[in-house]
């Protein structure tokens, strides 16, 4: 169900502009969720999968 792309931001400037990548790492999930910077594992997965703050 999950596809993960690692994109070199300077190589694909059009995409970087499209997603307003002003700092890295920047993560975009399903065109809707934006995560800027690195997060601890569980915080990142919660944010990426749009899980509630408490138990999912």
């Amino acid at each position, binding site marked *: *169900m*999950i*596809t993960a792309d690692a*994109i*070199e931001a300077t190589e694909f400037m059009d995409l970087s502009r499209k997603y307003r990548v002003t700092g890295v790492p920047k993560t*975009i999930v399903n065109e809707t969720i934006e995560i800027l910077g690195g997060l601890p594992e*569980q915080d990142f997965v919660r944010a990426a*999968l749009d899980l509630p703050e408490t138990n999912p």
Partner: protein
Amino acid sequence: MGLLSPQDEATLRQHLSAISKPVQLLLFTQTFGGSESGQVAKQILDEIASLNDKITVVEKNFVLDTEDKTKFKIDKAPAIVILSNDVDTRMRMYGAPTGYEFVGLVEAILVAGTGNIDLEPETMAWIQAVTTPTHIQVFSTPT
């Protein structure tokens, strides 16, 4: 001359020795109108593959190999598709895997080749519960 120093090669060879399943790296490059990063990516993948005989590199033409391009949903080049024993891991890298990206590539190869995913059990459960198509794009730079 190789991109990796003899010392880096030795360290990397040791890391890659954990691999038990064949790993195929499909590299989509564009010969005409493409950037030089395709050639850099090819050299990096070839050097990694030379360190472990379970890793193979298969070069695809971004313009001509339309069937594979469609199959793996590749819309830009250079692109690296990582297969584990011919099964798509759904991990992709776009651009030359240099700098920090290189670490990510090696980690992805290790996941594909060992099946070991270094995540907390709780996090794994959340991920396994996903039932809708989820496309994660992480932008980074080599430095």
